[in-house]
């Protein structure tokens, strides 16, 4: 019999609802696990022990009154970019030191209303800018498969929280792969829903045309369960979509038979590690034996995605991050003689190098004389990338690639060369530019480190991805392999 902290979200909710288990016991077990394991991993920035116990008690009382809750007692870790009223939200940045938001993110509120228990806030690359979580101003989060290696990023803390069984569910955000890539590098499931599927009210903005909230879980069933609660229109977010949300757990059960998986082979030619490619090819075979048909598709403009992304995303970031000026939130540099000086000094002290780099790049591509050549051109290339997917996803139900061309790399390996770090996002950024959903699944190991399989789908068709993912996990066991801790 497995320990309580290993229990899936689906099983926890079922047992808490049937009162075979109390939410209080579950929360205690998760907090104990965090206390035992996190000192060696540093996934959490804040552990909310007292609040979690109080919330768990409230869940037990609700269930005792006979009410069923979809996520009854499920421990959840939340990336520190989503606000919870009255608690610190740092975004991994010094500039938000001392900030306590006056509201709670809809994504968090929805999970809590369904009975989930938030156990803490997780570490991340500053303002979600990075692919290794090394850009956090606070701590280095370690990969549980090899503590000398990064967990990926930017939602590294949330990926590790689930990989090391400190919570069965965590929330991350994905602007260019920040859920899918750390999920791949840590060997867990990561879902980036369609742009607009999940409300971003209370999510600190990085690049508003790309940002999306989504879950990390150990298996696809839990991802489907959490997505069913998380998705849906929110009047507080004008970009949240009105499309009806299916019960993804039900939808997932339809199996892979009849679904076509397209592989863009010509896009997978460069820079993919041999071990990653071998695991990817085996995953395609497994998808075939699960009932899917494998076809070839082409994404002729996808190799322009990195250039396009780092123009569009930095442009939007430079605008979104203009609000951190020492007036309304967090840090203010003391002693400046006038307002202009206070702005400059606050931003110099508050932002780390990667954030400064992206603000500079984004300001440059938007500046007079360069706007047309960079920003406007990138927006046009974005259209071409979206059209590529429109065409490919008429010929298949999901496009498959490795999630990341490499497995978890060592600390410091890519920090001196920002462009090298950006290139690691090659397979994840196209989905954000196109606004389509993406799922990363553990598909084996290379050199002892997890490899991720990525499936990309039509807008608002998360169901096909979850069907394929669930069918894949019925014929494979990669998601059941836990890191040695």
């Amino acid at each position, binding site marked *: 019999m497995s320990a309580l902290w290993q229990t899936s979200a689906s099983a926890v909710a079922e047992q808490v609802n049937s009162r075979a288990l109390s939410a209080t016991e579950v929360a205690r077990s998760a907090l104990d696990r965090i206390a035992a394991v996190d000192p060696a991993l540093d996934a959490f920035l804040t552990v909310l022990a007292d609040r979690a116990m109080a919330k768990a008690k409230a869940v037990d009382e609700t269930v005792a009154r006979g009410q069923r809750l979809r996520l009854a007692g499920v421990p959840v870790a939340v990336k520190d970019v989503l606000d919870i009223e009255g608690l610190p939200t740092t975004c991994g940045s010094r500039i938000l030191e001392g900030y306590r938001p006056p509201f709670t993110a809809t994504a968090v509120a929805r999970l809590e209303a369904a009975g989930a228990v938030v156990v803490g806030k997780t570490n991340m690359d500053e303002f979600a800018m990075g692919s290794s979580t090394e850009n956090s101003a606070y701590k280095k989060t370690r990969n549980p498969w090899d503590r000398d290696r990064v967990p990926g990023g930017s939602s590294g803390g949330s990926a590790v929280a689930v990989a090391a069984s400190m919570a069965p569910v965590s929330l991350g955000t994905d602007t260019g792969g920040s859920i899918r890539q750390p999920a791949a590098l840590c060997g867990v499931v990561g879902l980036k829903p369609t*742009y607009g599927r999940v409300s971003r009210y209370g999510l600190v903005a990085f690049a508003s045309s790309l940002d999306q909230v989504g879950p990390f879980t150990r298996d696809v069933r839990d991802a489907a369960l959490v997505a069913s609660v998380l998705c849906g229109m929110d*009047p507080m977010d004008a970009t949240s979509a009105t499309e009806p949300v299916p019960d993804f757990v039900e939808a997932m059960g339809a199996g892979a038979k009849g679904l076509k998986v397209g592989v863009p082979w010509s896009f997978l030619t460069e820079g993919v590690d041999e071990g990653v490619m071998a695991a990817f090819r085996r995953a395609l075979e497994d998808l075939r034996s699960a009932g899917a048909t494998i076809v070839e598709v082409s994404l002729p403009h996808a190799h322009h995605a990195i250039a396009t992304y780092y123009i569009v995303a930095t442009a939007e970031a430079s605008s979104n991050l203009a609000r951190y000026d020492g007036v309304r939130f967090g840090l203010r540099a003391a002693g400046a003689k006038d307002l202009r000086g206070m702005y*400059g000094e606050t931003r110099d002290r508050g932002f780390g190098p990667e954030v400064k780099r992206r603000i500079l790049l984004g300001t440059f591509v938007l500046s007079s004389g360069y706007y047309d050549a960079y920003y406007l051109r990138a927006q046009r290339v974005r259209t071409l990338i979206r059209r590529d997917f429109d065409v490919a996803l008429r010929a298949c139900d999901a496009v498959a690639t490795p999630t990341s061309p490499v497995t978890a790399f060592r600390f410091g390996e890519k920090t001196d060369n920002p462009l090298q770090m950006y290139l690691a996002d090659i397979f994840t950024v196209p989905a954000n530019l196109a606004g389509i959903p993406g799922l990363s699944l553990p598909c084996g190991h290379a050199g002892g480190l997890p490899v991720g399989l990525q499936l990309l789908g039509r807008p608002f068709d998360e169901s096909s991805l979850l069907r394929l993912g669930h069918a894949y996990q019925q014929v494979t066991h990669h998601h059941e392999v836990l890191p040695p801790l």
Partner: protein
Amino acid sequence: MVYYRPMAKVTSETVQHVANLARLSLTEEERSTFALQLDDVLSYAEAIQKLELADVPPMSHAGTVERFREDSPAGELPHEKVVAAAPDPAERLFRVPKVLGG
């Protein structure tokens, strides 16, 4: 017609200009490091300068519809809570250093 702008080499001066626009104070060392790194990224991005894009519309977001609501106040946050989150609140206001230099 192919629109093509020859690449501008990013210098410390370019970085200083952009830093002023972005209200970032940078050290001399930061200026030269960022100049090299930005140049690297922009050189890589040169590939998109060669694409024929005249007939391709720009895409500013991936949303499926533009949705508007009635322009009526709703769900506003309590004033005092918002001001309390600031580093230097002054009753119902944000206090700032003097606006004009000197």
